[in-house]
């Protein structure tokens, strides 16, 4: 590190270390961010990105190491102190209050006089200037995810930050919203604001960032100029090996296994979405994807298909030609439906129960129960088979579900469903929060399952994933489902347009 750099660096970390019981989250991390630089922090889930950012933002204290701000050593004791230095953060899971309005949310993060009227006009000024259109007096619960992110960004911008931390900002955005976010970020950087951009998406980082620091298992595994790297070389730095390849066997769709016919359901939840006239057929040996930003009826559709919510008209959902709309989740599973919900802990698995016990929850149909008694031997065998066939890294069948990483638990849950040989498998967000290796493995399992003639319905926010594995893709927005199009006849851009609705139109205007 040269003297000149030390004088000019906006932020410099030296030997930052943070230990949690049983794990070193960050191990002697060095990082330098220059004024006006867009700097990527690249790494897998669990590589220590979030912990590092929390330390810069004052939410967590480092155990060792030193932070320099504009060349001076500083202790960032709290988020309040970070903000006073000029550090703003946009959280991955937004830190907004749903029952408050936009302007109230912003007011909470600002110091000084409490005057909502003048603050509202300041919000409008900033949102005009950066093309982040938001209405100050709307309640946050009525905003789309993209709009919520804009609120977070505007909230940071009103504090005139010198460093803006963005934690996985595009994970919830449509492709068009991503393009517009990048325009805003480049404008900010050109005005001298430094940006720390946390992501595991290689393409985005190559498009946007000036420099990248790659973390692996809490350590810096390399620095790079992302524009000069290929996704493969970045992945090499990020996961230590090259990206696994996927094989796709040719398959021919058979008869209709799952039919959704004019599925209409009014929501009881004031913040929920009503489903209107949803139609879709899924054939044997076919993978159909439902794209869309969460909160557009995904949760409601999943509940209606899995049987968590029964339907007024039993003919709205047909399984193997048999009406099942009136049946509960257990009865539909008896007829050969497999279901992997979005929330792994709490819905897919009971956090405090062991893997073996979690296996019984849906796989009791595989003769794991005799009369009123559990067959401990068979349960253990089933769990062991699931663990070994699906490469679940864990301490054994007795390991509690919550002790597994997201990727390993997801492999177990998907495995549990696949081992029951379903006719139809419905999977919500199969690889959300899952590391690249496990994600590839799970996608491969789904492809192999389809090749065996199972009908698979996948709901996902990740368009690349859907394009990788699906035969046809439909888009769910505001509770209505578009026509499912063969993957070969559509593009990511087209699907993105359908996903966006209002967001997409604004994206074009900007």
């Amino acid at each position, binding site marked *: 590190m040269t003297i000149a750099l030390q004088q000019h660096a906006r932020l410099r970390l030296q030997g930052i270390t943070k230990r949690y019981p049983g794990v070193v989250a960050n191990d002697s991390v060095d990082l330098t961010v220059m004024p006006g630089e867009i700097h990527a922090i690249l790494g897998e889930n669990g590589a220590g990105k979030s912990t590092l950012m929390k330390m810069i933002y004052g939410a*967590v204290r480092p155990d060792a190491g030193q932070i320099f701000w504009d060349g001076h050593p500083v202790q960032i004791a709290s988020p309040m102190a970070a903000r006073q230095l000029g550090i703003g953060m946009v959280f991955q899971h937004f*830190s*907004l209050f749903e029952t408050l309005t936009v302007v109230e949310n912003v007011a*909470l993060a600002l110091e000084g006089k*409490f005057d909502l009227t003048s603050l509202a006009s300041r919000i409008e000024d900033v949102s005009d200037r950066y093309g982040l259109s938001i209405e100050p007096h709307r309640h946050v*619960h009525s905003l789309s995810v993209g709009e919520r992110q804009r609120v977070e960004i505007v909230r940071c911008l009103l504090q005139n930050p010198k460093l803006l931390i963005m934690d996985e900002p595009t994970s919830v955005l449509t492709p068009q919203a991503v393009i517009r976010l990048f325009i805003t970020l480049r404008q900010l950087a050109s005005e001298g604001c430094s940006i720390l951009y946390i992501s595991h998406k290689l393409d985005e980082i190559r498009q946007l960032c000036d420099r990248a620091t790659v973390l692996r298992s809490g350590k810096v595994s390399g620095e790079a100029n992302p524009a000069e790297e290929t996704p493969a070389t970045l992945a090499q730095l990020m996961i230590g090996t090259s990206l696994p390849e996927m094989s796709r066997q040719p398959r021919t769709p058979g008869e209709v296994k799952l039919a959704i016919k004019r599925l209409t359901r009014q929501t*009881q939840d*004031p913040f929920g979405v009503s489903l209107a006239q949803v139609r879709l057929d899924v054939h044997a040996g076919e993978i159909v994807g439902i794209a869309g930003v969460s909160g557009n009826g995904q949760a409601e559709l999943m509940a209606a298909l899995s049987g968590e919510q029964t339907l007024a008209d039993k003919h709205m959902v047909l399984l193997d030609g048999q009406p099942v709309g009136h049946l509960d989740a257990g009865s539909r599973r008896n007829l050969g439906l497999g279901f992997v919900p979005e929330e792994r802990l709490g819905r897919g698995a009971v956090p405090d129960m062991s893997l073996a016990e979690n296996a019984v929850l849906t796989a009791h149909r595989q003769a794991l129960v005799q009369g009123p008694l559990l067959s401990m031997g068979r349960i253990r065998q089933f769990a062991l088979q699931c663990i070994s066939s699906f490469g679940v890294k864990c301490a054994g069948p007795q390991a509690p579900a919550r002790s597994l990483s997201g990727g390993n638990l997801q492999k177990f849950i998907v495995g549990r469903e696949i081992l029951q040989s379903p006719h139809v498998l419905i999977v919500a967000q199969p690889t959300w929060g899952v590391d690249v290796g496990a994600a590839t493995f799970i996608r491969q399992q789904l492809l192999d399952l389809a090749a065996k003639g199972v009908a698979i319905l996948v709901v996902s926010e990740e368009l690349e994933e859907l394009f990788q594995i699906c035969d046809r893709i439909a888009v769910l927005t505001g509770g209505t489902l578009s026509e499912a199009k063969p993957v070969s006849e559509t593009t990511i851009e087209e699907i993105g347009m359908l996903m966006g609705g209002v967001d997409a139109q604004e994206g074009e205007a900007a």
Partner: protein
Amino acid sequence: MLDHTTALLAATMAAGTPLVYAALGELITEKSGVVNLGVEGMMLVGAIAAFATVASGNSLLAGVIAGGLAGMLLALVFAVLTLTLMANQYATGLALSIFGIGLSAFVGKAWLGMTVTGFQKVSIPLLSSIPVLGGALFQQDMMVYGSIALFALISLVLYKTKTGLLLRAVGESPDSAHAIGYPVVRIRYLATLAGGALCGVGGAYLSIVYTPMWVENMVAGRGWIALALTVFATWRPARILLGAYLFGGMTSLQFHAQGLGIAISPYLLSMLPYLATIVVLVVISRNPQTIRLHAPASLGKPFRPN
């Protein structure tokens, strides 16, 4: 007949006032995301503290203050257990109620059956001469006026100031409030203590104004009604006021009915205020959207900063 109406309305205000204090107190606590089921206990402890202070020859104001402090002290015990030591809020609150009932009965042995002179009615010039309503609304004791002022103050703070915004924010999402840098636990402590103090004052009103004497367990379930009021009023001050006076009105009406010798069992009649208040509030507050908008989403959930 008009005099009769005035008397009934005046009695309604008086009967509703302890509930106004206690329920507004619980509102502050619950808005921060803490549910303290110890209202009954805090009211009783406030009642005996106030009565003992006044009966020992101190001023009525000193009695009110003593009641508030006693309620706050009990709330402090609750706060230490639930906010610092992470005990379950529901179980701790129930224990607090039982403890308060026992403690007040034990301390109150010495004062059993004694009486004191409560606050005098204060007529507000001009306003009190309005027919019917004047005598009911503007010829009351200072604590009734105080409860109205408190209602106005809390409504203002809750919806028009940053303090109130922060309180609501902490109750909705302590994690978000922590993430943007607010001391969640400290805010919850303050809200819990404020709530306890107001419950104590509500109890004080019962023992030194409403029926200026000490009777064991004299709060008689009003603490539970105050709790129910807070919830069924969907955490909104105006509805709490409405519910409290509805309860007060039914209580006074029931006395009048007994006085007039209406042939209904007095036991059935004395059920009426509790039943009617709950039914009316449940009916007017059953819209899930308004519940979701006003309910503190983190209610009863412990928060541990990392």
